[in-house]
């Protein structure tokens, strides 16, 4: 170890210790909680799988987890489908500062305010219904906009899209425009150039954006509570309620780790699907490219 590395170690200590204490230790504690039992008003250390078993056996848990997976997949797919053209446009067509700043503004605008905005837009007396009524498209306000999985998905897409766009932009900015031009010169169509040049090279970033959106959406509990109604509830809300109302923390911890497991499975499936369709190149091809970068 060089003296410089030793100084580095000392300088790294405060942040590393902080994150160890307030991120790693709590996560491990939460994991052990999932094997403890809650009896009466006390939580007793134990090593049982009761929480996991009762979570999986609960029809409510299965229903909201199914909801969370569907809403998560739909939101993450729509988010990716919108962030790819925007990212592409910002990277290769026009490096528009204004568009970039507008996206940053939405990213940093208040989380609660955005949920509230969608509630007012989609509600029975909301703007969407007001416009539809005035245009004579519908006769009575449509109730189904708000308090549905649709409302949850459209709000969550709005919340996580800016971040996904920024991830896609940073992934695409590493691919040289000349590569795309070369492929176009060789006769590929615009879409072909995207699938054969951009997608494989930006695969890591695109999958990152998809998975991050999925994980954050599946764990979001405020949006389902505000705009989801009873049909748009997700696992996040169920877990949050264990820690806020019901008070069965070990069960909540088990549900949280089951959701984590679901995310891992989805990740594996997305990777497999990408490899199968050829959108993600095999590992050995990407490695040297990253070393150079």
């Amino acid at each position: 170890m060089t003296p410089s590395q030793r100084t580095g170690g000392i300088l790294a200590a405060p942040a590393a210790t902080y994150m160890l204490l307030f991120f790693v230790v709590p996560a491990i504690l939460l994991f052990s909680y999932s094997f403890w039992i809650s009896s009466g008003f006390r939580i007793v250390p134990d090593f049982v799988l009761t929480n996991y078993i009762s979570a999986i056996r609960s029809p409510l848990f299965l229903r909201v987890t199914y909801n969370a997976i569907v809403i998560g997949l739909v939101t993450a797919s729509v988010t990716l489908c919108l962030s790819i053209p925007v990212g592409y446009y910002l990277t290769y067509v026009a490096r528009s500062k204004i568009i970039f700043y507008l996206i940053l503004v939405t990213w940093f605008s208040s989380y609660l305010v955005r949920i509230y905005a969608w509630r007012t837009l989609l509600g029975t007396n909301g703007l969407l219904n007001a416009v539809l009524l005035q245009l004579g498209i519908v006769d009575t306000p449509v109730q189904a906009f708000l308090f549905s999985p649709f409302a949850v998905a459209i709000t969550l897409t709005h919340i996580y899209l800016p971040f996904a766009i920024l991830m896609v932009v940073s992934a695409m900015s590493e691919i040289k425009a000349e590569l795309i031009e070369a492929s176009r010169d060789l006769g590929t169509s615009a879409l072909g150039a995207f699938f054969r040049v951009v997608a494989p090279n930006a695969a890591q970033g695109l999958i990152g954006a998809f998975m991050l959106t999925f994980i954050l959406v599946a764990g979001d509990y405020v949006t389902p509570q505000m705009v989801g109604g009873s049909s748009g509830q997700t696992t996040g809300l169920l877990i949050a309620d264990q820690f806020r109302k019901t008070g069965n923390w070990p069960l909540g911890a088990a549900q949280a780790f089951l959701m984590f497991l679901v995310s891992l499975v989805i990740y594996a499936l997305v990777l497999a699907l990408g490899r199968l369709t050829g959108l993600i190149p095999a590992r050995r091809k990407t490695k040297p490219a990253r070393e150079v970068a």
Partner: protein
Amino acid sequence: MMLLKAVVYATLAYLLIPLVVIILFSFNAEQSFSFPINGYSLRWYALIFEDPQLGQALVKSLMIATATAIVTLVLGTAASLAWLRLGRFGRSVLEILCITPIALPGLFLGVSLLVLAAQLGVRLSTVTIVVSHVVLSVPMLMIAMRARLALFDRTLEEASRDLGASQIGTFKRITLPLIAPTLISCAILSFALSFDEFVVTSFVAGTETTLPMYIWSMMRRTVTPLINSVSTLALLFSIAVMAIGFFVGRFKRASALSERASS
């Protein structure tokens, strides 16, 4: 190409319309959400000042955000300097510890900190809120710094030492001016992040009420246009803070560069 442009602008409209609607209706003279708006007034803004609890929540949020920004800046500066000096292994350990939380839902971080506090018997307070906000803002700082530090030329530090500057002198004259702009804009961004944070806060706040938590309780109680005016102010505040952050970052970097060019 036209299609691409259309998709981009439609996406932008989708992102911006909800925010514009909130701002527009905060000036609505009437209580309802009817369109077109019949008259404009500032009555919902006047109501803000009649609510003392709102003021208290605002002050609390400002205090928490300031504390978060300071702690993040201190930890982040040390970690950035460390990142420059560490080898490949040290860097990955530091990155795994300091970046992973960004890929986890706030719910997960919130409940795990709640469990920790309960296990240690710590009372939930402003302190636990600050602790949780720092866990969220350090990853953001590390991501921004890593991109900046990848361009950092360590030979500049070596040259300064070779020319006889002390370690502290080198830090003050070379290292700090180079990384300061990014650090300061990160500190301002962590202020904005903390000011707006709700999900984690709701688990570790105990009986404390921050501004987002107060807005949340308003949202659950009633549908009042007061929420529109408070939201608009919160929105403008976040945008202003963010704009300052970017401006400081750019200005500092530009002045540092021109200084180096002239000397």
